[in-house]
């Protein structure tokens, strides 16, 4: 009996380790390629350890390719602004839907839920025409304003505030705080775990988005990283060492954020995971 249990355990470990290797290989291969010389890349030899370790690829993308730092900056500006606005506006809407009484609340909530189910392709073309009319194509606001709220997270924040203890708010009200005061001084600081999970998802969604910038941005000066990377590929079609270095730079910020917020991340998925 015991022997069988050990064999079973061994088998499970084998599955886990094998799949870990399958997961890691593409990343390790990309990382190692980013430190290889062009000669080694072209020669087609397969080795995970660069024969001649070089930082030239990174130097190339940051110093020679002047656009690359600009793309990094654009992505950062857009992702950070979108995240901050989402945290604020989704919480405000979620709070109103959970706690405040006003006419039209129920239909509004139903509309927000319904919107969750509309695929982005339906609104994509009209959105383009509206942004064109506003003169917002090729602009930060064209990227930011349409994504500054998110129905999924409004819903999530509503669920969070519904389960939030009312007594704290009532005590604050007795102390003479207004609704706004209560919301910003008492409720929002206590909602930190929900906000952290939301922040990661919104930031990643914006940072990794490909389709929206592809449609809205045509000026390379304003490209975000995914778009820049794609145009980079076109330009340096056989310079996979540069492309891999750029990919690694692109991935690093998300990994750092994940390392810091890992705990909230899993929580956030089970939040949004329809449970």
């Amino acid at each position, binding site marked *: 009996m015991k022997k069988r249990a050990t064999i079973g355990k061994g088998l499970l470990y084998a599955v886990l380790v094998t799949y870990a290797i399958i997961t890691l290989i593409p990343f390790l*291969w990309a990382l190692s390629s980013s430190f290889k010389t062009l000669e080694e890349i072209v020669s087609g030899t397969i080795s995970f350890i660069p024969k001649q370790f070089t930082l030239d690829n990174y130097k190339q993308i940051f110093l020679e390719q002047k656009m690359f730092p600009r793309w990094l900056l654009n992505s950062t500006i857009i992702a950070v602004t979108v995240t901050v606005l989402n945290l604020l506006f989704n919480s*405000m809407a979620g709070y109103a839907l959970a706690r405040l009484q006003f006419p039209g609340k129920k239909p509004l909530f139903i509309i*927000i839920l319904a919107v969750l189910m509309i*695929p982005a392709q339906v609104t994509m*073309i009209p959105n383009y025409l509206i942004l064109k009319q506003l003169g917002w194509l090729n602009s930060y606001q064209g990227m930011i*304003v349409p994504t500054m709220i998110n129905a999924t997270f*409004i819903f999530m924040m509503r669920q969070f505030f519904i389960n939030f203890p009312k007594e704290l708010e009532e005590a604050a009200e007795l102390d003479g705080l207004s*609704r706004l005061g209560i919301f910003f001084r008492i409720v929002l600081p206590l909602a930190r775990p929900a906000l952290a999970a939301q922040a990661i998802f919104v930031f990643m969604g914006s940072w990794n988005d*490909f389709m929206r910038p592809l449609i809205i941005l045509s000026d390379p000066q304003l490209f975000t990283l995914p778009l820049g990377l794609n145009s980079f590929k076109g330009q340096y079609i056989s310079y996979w060492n540069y492309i891999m270095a750029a990919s690694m730079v692109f991935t690093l910020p998300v990994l750092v954020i994940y390392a810091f917020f890992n705990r909230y991340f899993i929580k956030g998925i089970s939040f949004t995971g329809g449970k």
Partner: protein
Amino acid sequence: MKRKWRETGTGYLFMSPTLFVLLLFIIGPIVFAIFLAFHKVQLLGTTTFEFVGLDNFERIAHDARAKIALWNTLKYVVIVVPCQTILALVLAATLNAGLKGQKFFRIVYFLPTLTSSAVLTLIFMWMYNQNGLINHVLKLLGLPTYNWIGDPDVALTAIMIMNIWSTAPYFMVIYLAALQDIPDSLYEAAELDGANALQKFWYVTVPYLRPVTSFVVIMGLIGTFQLFDQSYIFSGGSGGPNNSTLTVVLLIYQYAFKTLGTMGYAAALAFVLALIILTATLLQRKFSKEESLY
């Protein structure tokens, strides 16, 4: 009375950013999209609209590329959704077996989900190279090698492999959360009945997870029907080689933004796609509900 008015005011104040975006960028566009689907749109100079009735929808039936795109997308959905669901379930069950180092494995497995589709696609294109890592490994194992990116017979398969690999971990996390809720008593009862590990998995875990599986399959359907980034980057926006990676969304993108005068037609295609996704989700729901009656 005054208090009530104040609360209404605060309510609308708090809702105002949401209402603004909802009206201007979501509900307005949905109405606009219906309008577009029945019009021919000219973007040159000032935008003009010409009413064409159902022409745009009729055109879909005669469009050879639309049929190819639909066929590719269906093939992709039918293969990727079951594969990624089963893989996610197996990985979650293995991770939940109480072994050491779970946390480490979980972090490793999650990497692809964090990484952007653009980066993943580029990394895989680099590995799919004719002289690339994947062909080297295949040769080493004595298996046939492929021109993954250039051969129309395998290009879509290449994207499928990549996406199963990158999406399964996301659903794995959802399964993991659900697995923690299964009461131990169920497994103990099964053990008393003499069930082995595999039987416990099949007769206890799988049925218990049915609602979560339903959710995972629906999310999978919605995601796979909308495949775009990967085939766009893989084919440089063309859907090639020989239309083998052309998906419905890529076709919508091409008609809307790359060819002149077909924006209304693209809007009609988008509606058909939305309808297909809706039907697939409803069917899945109905199907899994009937199953749970037994």
